[in-house]
């Protein structure tokens, strides 16, 4: 199969039907026809301990990386796609858009990026990503990475060991997926707190810049340029801290508070 990110693509081959099926579902919104020249080819082979992933011409019994489960395979393929566009600043973040402007949702595992992004999509927002977002620093725009969102079941607690078991795929229609990079208008840092009402408050720029640094996935590639960009970004766009316990309520709070700001950006 061929998975595309903007004009780049990788070709994935596998001898494991469950991997093929899982990746086809995970990247269903990013599948492409055979590219003229893929950025690289990936082979995923079933082994006794899991799956071995090899890039391009790697060969030999110990070549490549051993991945224990399908969740790791998905993540590794996503990272390889990310590596086809190293000029972007990649953030561990979700992102959605409305009215031609994007809301960035940076946060660590378990903060609820996917649940909030999909809740917003359910009320008409466009989906860019639920886990990693590439930022075009020159254009100040979020690049769509529409991997199929994985949403935590509302009744499930956080158990890293059972990651696959407690998350389900959220089906998105092609119409609810954003196809073009969108200018960044707002950043919201979600924080899940049991029993907390949805509460959106302005965040100071210093704390916001630190959170953005912590969510950078390829910071080393950009160094000072990324620092300057983040400093400029938090000066330029409003940044919020969101505490919540129920994602639809958090989405409603975002919609109510931020929609007027998005109109200002796109207008």
């Amino acid at each position: 199969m061929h998975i595309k990110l903007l004009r780049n693509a990788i070709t994935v081959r596998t001898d494991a039907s469950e991997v093929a099926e899982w990746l086809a579902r995970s990247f269903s919104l990013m599948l492409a026809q055979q590219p003229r020249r893929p950025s690289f080819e990936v082979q995923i082979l079933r082994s006794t301990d899991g799956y071995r992933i090899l890039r391009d011409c790697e060969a030999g019994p110990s070549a490549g990386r051993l991945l224990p489960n399908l969740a790791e395979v998905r993540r590794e393929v996503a990272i390889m796609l990310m590596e086809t566009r190293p000029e972007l600043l990649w953030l561990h973040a979700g992102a959605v858009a409305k009215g031609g402007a994007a809301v960035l949702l940076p946060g660590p595992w378990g903060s609820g990026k996917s649940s909030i992004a999909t809740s917003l999509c359910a009320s008409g927002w466009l989906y860019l990503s639920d886990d990693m977002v590439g930022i075009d620093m020159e254009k100040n725009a979020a690049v769509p990475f529409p991997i199929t969102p994985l949403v935590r079941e509302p009744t499930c607690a956080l158990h890293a060991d059972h990651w696959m078991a407690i998350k389900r795929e959220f089906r998105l229609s092609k119409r609810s997926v954003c196809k073009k990079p969108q200018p960044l208008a707002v950043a919201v840092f979600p924080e899940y707190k049991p029993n907390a009402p949805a509460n959106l408050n302005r965040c100071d720029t210093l704390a916001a810049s630190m959170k953005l640094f912590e969510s950078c996935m390829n910071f080393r590639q950009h160094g000072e340029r990324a620092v300057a960009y983040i400093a400029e970004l938090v000066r330029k766009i409003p940044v919020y801290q969101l505490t919540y316990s129920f994602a639809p309520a958090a989405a409603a709070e975002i919609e109510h508070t931020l929609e007027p700001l998005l109109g200002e950006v796109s207008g």
Partner: protein
Amino acid sequence: MGRAVFLGCTIRPETLAKESANAPNSMSDSIPDEAGGVGPSFKPRRRSTVRQHELPDGLLIFNPQSLKAFALNASASAVWDLCDGNHTIADIALELSQCAGRTPEELLPDVATAVQKLLELGLVEQDALP
């Protein structure tokens, strides 16, 4: 992931103005060093390789050698601004006391701790001896 550290110090940030009054030359060196810490006569200087970006509520500092970013709150930023190789720690405490509503003696431990931290993180160095 990027590595970020928040640095703050407790010099009543709400009362600290960025443009403080003229700095007297120095305070008495009789104030003892904290154990293992920097002394009042220590002259810290910002490393030339370190980059800084001003934010509304502090400074964002980046050390390209360690690839680490640091956030300095208003108090720590005020100390940082005076780490110019000309001011001793005692001078910094004296200068900041004029807008912090505390005596230089009260401020000195906070300033010394802040400078010590900046030193450990490789953001400042001791000014070269003449």
